[in-house]
């Protein structure tokens, strides 16, 4: 209904600080740029000199064998830990020094691989507290939710198929349902970009098609740019416009799904020849 409108209305607030020259880029410019990002944990190089772009309005995939540094890169982008070198921008603004909450309020949101919801609250409350907090003032802390917010929460719960279970405690849902709830909570937050860490992991294979469909509709109908880590090749090849492949902490290949599928280096990396 008014979800995309709501987001454009909030765009000025997102850029409350004076935008940098690059902040007024055309839509064809990448919404997220990662340049030369390196992150080490002790002696382990999790990411080495990685550069990639996430195009506005598109679905970008991030693949790679286990331990190739995908989740580390996610964590770096959303500000979960400081990076050792490099630069990350979101809508032209440098975010590599910002904290998690600030980045989330800019409209760059992530879901977790191991699914995190508020277990003792019911699904509706989980949704209601996930409204965007970017403009929240001290008085808003004591506001009650509006009828619009409640309706939006119910609509999104309906969208992911949890409407009947909306009064159950989120912790009592199955893992797959929690995953859907987390996705709905992310949509409730009206993000500009959503980073999804293995959205189909642990979901019943018969439900995966439904989830793919919902992710695509979040992208087309709500205009949310998606960056997705995914192990299920069928899923990611089916959805992504562009795919980046990591291996051993480095960027191995990038291109369209067809190019990636036919790239010998990618096949070798997955089969262990690397």
């Amino acid at each position, binding site marked *: 209904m008014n979800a995309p409108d709501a987001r454009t209305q909030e765009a000025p607030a997102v850029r409350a600080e004076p935008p940098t020259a690059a902040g007024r880029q055309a839509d064809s410019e990448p919404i997220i740029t990662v340049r030369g990002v390196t992150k080490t944990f002790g002696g382990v190089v999790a990411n080495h000199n990685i550069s990639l772009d996430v195009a506005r309005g598109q679905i970008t995939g991030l693949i790679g064998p286990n331990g190739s540094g995908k989740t580390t890169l996610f964590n770096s982008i959303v500000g979960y830990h400081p990076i050792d070198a490099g630069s990350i921008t979101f809508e032209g603004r440098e975010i590599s020094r910002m904290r998690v*909450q600030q980045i*989330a309020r800019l409209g760059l949101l992530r879901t977790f691989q191991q699914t995190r919801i508020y277990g003792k*609250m*019911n699904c509706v409350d989980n949704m209601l507290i996930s409204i965007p*907090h970017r403009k929240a003032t001290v008085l808003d802390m004591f506001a009650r939710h509006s009828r619009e917010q409640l*309706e939006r929460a119910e609509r999104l719960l*309906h969208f992911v198929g949890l*409407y009947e279970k909306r*009064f159950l405690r989120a912790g009592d849902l199955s893992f797959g349902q929690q995953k859907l709830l987390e996705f709905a909570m992310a949509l409730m937050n009206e993000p500009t970009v959503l980073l999804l860490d293995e959205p189909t992991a642990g979901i019943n294979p018969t439900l995966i098609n439904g989830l793919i469909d919902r992710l695509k509709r979040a992208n087309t109908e709500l205009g949310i740019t998606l960056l997705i880590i995914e192990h299920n090749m069928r899923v990611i090849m089916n959805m992504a416009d562009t795919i980046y492949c990591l291996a051993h902490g480095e960027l191995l290949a990038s291109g369209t799904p067809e190019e990636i599928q036919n790239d010998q280096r990618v096949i070798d990396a997955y089969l262990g020849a690397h």
Partner: protein
Amino acid sequence: MNETSKRSPLVWVLYGAILVAGALAPMAFPAYTNQMAVLWLMIVFALTWDILGGQMGYNSLGNIFFFGAGMYVSAVIQIGLYHNVSEYTDAAGSGVYTFTETQYFTGIFLGMIGAAIFATISAFILGMVLFGLRGPYFAIGTLGVAIAAGELTGAWDWVGGGSGISMPTFPGHPDTGKYFFYTLMFALAVSVFVFLKWLYSTRFGHAINAIRDDEEKAEGMGIHTNRYKRLAWSFSAFFLGISGAIFGNMTGFIEPLEVAFPTITFGIFMVVMVLLGGKGTLWGPILGAIIFHAIKEVTWTYMLGWQWVALGFLIVVIVVYFQQGIMGWIMDKKPEWFGLTIAQLEAQGAAGDGPVSSDPAEGRVGT
């Protein structure tokens, strides 16, 4: 949102009955006025502890600090308004200092305000430091604050040091005084309940619940977690500061370790009462406080000499076997009483079929 409109009149009758019973209790049982005032204090303790411990998931063992700080701030204000504090404490209650009726009540009034302000600000400042700690480290850190406050006050001669302060005496018949302090405690407990009932119905309640369930997720969703945490503790401290001011005057004599900062009695009672009643609920702490206070009074009367053993045994039993508390236990057995049910799907077709923008609540738009 529309919880109140759904409430049956029965609930309002219940609230009214509690108010009337609370106001009339000291007239019906005048011999127990002080015990009942302490019961309201226990309810204040339990409700304010539950803001952090139950609703926000931060177990503070140092909330008693705000109680003691409020008590001392109020004492200093009440005395300092009309006399020299250091001379007053040196005299150790030898009775040369008098307060007129007006001075007494002005002092108490301003003392309570000062206590509330001081406690609130100190909670906000302590929160900046201590909320960096999580889990057991937060508990130990807050306990350290309470113990340190008791020891420091004991070494501070200006406020009487270890020998404490004799508070100004109530200008009137002792029974009137008892009724006066009972009424203050009762009004405070009711205010805390009304305030929390409102607070938990706003976004604030949802936000601190989210922090309890998964603080990292809450940060990831952009919630201003630090703001909420500091304010939550400040609310707790605000009421505890006032309760300390009232209790100090009620007992008439205050000193640091047993009355103002009693970490191992009141400080632990707060936690046990909430655990017994059921943390994270509004009525749980109240139930817990009533039952705990009753058990405590009975053991003090009938098991004198063994009262601490009995109380320790009770605490062990609660912590080991009954962590979810009375309300938590009922919630597990009868989730439907609390609205935790599978809702009937309204005639919308299969879930998730419509476009995102389809509105399952169309019929209600514009009402």
